[in-house]
């Protein structure tokens, strides 16, 4: 590998190939037993798609300025739970949510709640990078514009946001170019930047790295570690190492099969500090999944 140079001196390609690779090990953080200040609290959360009972009885808390990872086998309802935290499920006509979801104590599915206001505070990053077919600049400026955010200088906001997302040096000379010209990893970081441009309270991420190579993945993980200082992050991931590396707490979901009816439904098995889940899980299913024997 080349010696490290300053980002700005390198071409785009070189940055991706030889950029500083963050260490996969991170400083161990003190994680209290239960979240000190829960951002979300769910109580007996149940989610249906039409007649299909996708998720049953999820009760958990998501702590402020923590990274919570949701793991579990495919189809166990991780995305479903995640999308109900910013009311994205409202876009699916058949989806129905019952039970309680509180956001800073406010019932998210209360009668007076406007899902648009909810989503303005709770940003989302999707599995597949989905930048708008607009310039890099306009992608970042989109959120502040539609939310009517008061900004002194949009240029400054775009720069700051891109810097926070560790993307500035790579794109500063092509802000007016179409975002589709970026690499997959850059596009995903742009989507993260776009999500934080409005300064949301929470960022939800649904398998944000599943389409990326290991280096791009590590960059995003590094970014998450930095963002944790100012945001609450909830991430769905299939990558055990990733959950272990970045998260403070981990929730393990699985598909539960009703013995008598044969109905399948997703549910929470175990929720604890990440270190506990990975080193000393209390449920056999968790242990099996983590060690790769099951799921």
């Amino acid at each position, binding site marked *: 590998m080349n010696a490290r140079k300053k980002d700005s001196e390198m071409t785009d390609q070189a940055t991706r190939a030889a950029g500083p690779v963050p260490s996969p090990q991170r400083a161990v953080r003190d994680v209290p037993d239960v979240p000190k200040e829960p951002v979300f609290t769910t109580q007996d959360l149940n989610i249906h798609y039409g007649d299909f009972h996708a998720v049953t009885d999820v009760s958990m808390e998501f702590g402020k300025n923590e990274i919570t990872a949701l793991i579990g086998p495919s189809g166990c309802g991780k995305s479903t739970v995640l999308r109900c935290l910013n009311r994205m499920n409202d876009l699916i006509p058949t989806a129905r949510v019952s039970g309680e979801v509180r956001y800073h104590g406010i019932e998210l599915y209360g009668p007076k709640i406007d899902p648009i206001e909810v989503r303005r505070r709770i940003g989302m990053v999707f599995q597949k990078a989905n930048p708008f077919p607009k310039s890099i600049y306009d992608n970042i400026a989109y959120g502040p514009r*539609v939310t009517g955010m008061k900004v002194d200088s949009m240029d400054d906001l775009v720069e700051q946001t891109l810097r926070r997302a560790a993307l500035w040096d790579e794109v500063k000379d092509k802000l007016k170019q179409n975002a589709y010209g970026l690499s997959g990893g850059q596009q995903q970081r742009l989507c993260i930047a776009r999500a934080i441009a409005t300064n949301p309270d929470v960022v939800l991420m649904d398998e944000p790295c599943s389409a990326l190579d290991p280096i791009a993945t590590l960059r995003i993980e590094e970014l998450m570690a930095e963002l944790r200082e100012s945001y609450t992050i909830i991430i769905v991931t299939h990558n055990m190492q990733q959950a272990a590396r970045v998260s403070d707490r981990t929730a393990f979901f699985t598909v539960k099969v009703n013995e008598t009816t044969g109905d399948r439904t997703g549910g929470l098995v175990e929720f604890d500090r990440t270190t506990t889940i990975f080193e000393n899980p209390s449920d056999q299913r968790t242990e099996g999944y983590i060690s790769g024997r099951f799921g």
Partner: protein
Amino acid sequence: MALLTAPTEPSSVGPPLSLEPSSRRLGEKFIVALLFGAAALAVLITVGIVLAIAGPTIEFFRQVPFSRFFSTEAWAPNFVPDGFGVYNILAGTAAIVLYSCMIALPAGLGAAIYLNEYASHRARRILKPVLEVLEGIPTVVYGLFALAFVAPLLQEIWPTFVPGKLGDPPGFQFVLSAGVVLGIMIIPTVASVSQDAMSAIPHGLREAAYGLGSTKMQVATKVVVPSAFSGIVASFVLGLSRAVGETMVVLMAAGAIANLTLWPNDPVLTMTAFIGRTATGDVGFGTTTYYTLFAVAALLFVITLVVNMISIALVRKFREVYE
């Protein structure tokens, strides 16, 4: 990599390995030839039409100078004294296109946005087929609709909206009634082509927009419409071309007076209506009137060609920005 199992030995029985074509695939070659023929036929027919129009058009300009055709002199090709000022019927076409597009383009785009972004499942299930039925109604029925319903209605409300001398109600054939009805007629075309373009944009874009806290209106105007822009332009051009080329409605409802005007209250003759009205069989072959038909047809052809070329350029230009 090491985990991959080695490929199993090919079974010892069976024919030896051969990678040569197992048959001569004549059927496929035949079908390809047939498909090529179909594509070539379309090109040949187009060339044929151009040639068929070109000959008589050249002959027309031998008899009537360019400067008389492209002029504002009266339009009276089969009268004495004759007049060939095509601007009169060009204006008729322009007026019809103006009013019909003023209705069809915004309404068609609006309908597409509604169908794609706002309509409930049920509303869409009802409205889409209705639009398709509207597309299938024969134009002559629209012509009757203009004469029997829209013209009287406009005559009645005209004086309330237009003051003074200009407020005199129109006769029963005039630009606005034909334009309005033609516009209504074109709405379904614009709407369905635009909506197809909108429904083709990736779901992820819409999710991204909603995830950032966009309202439905913002999703529609800032993400869906710009992303579907080239399809929307295509729908507009299609609508415009139909307005330029439509004959029956204007023949029935716009009047038959070649009139250098865009005023909604006036009767006009469009280029298509002139051809439709004149080419009835009693035009003598080889007369100047006969050649005039072709000259006007050639002009129509050129106009639609230019419109299409502009649209292709537009789509190209915006592709650069939006893909």
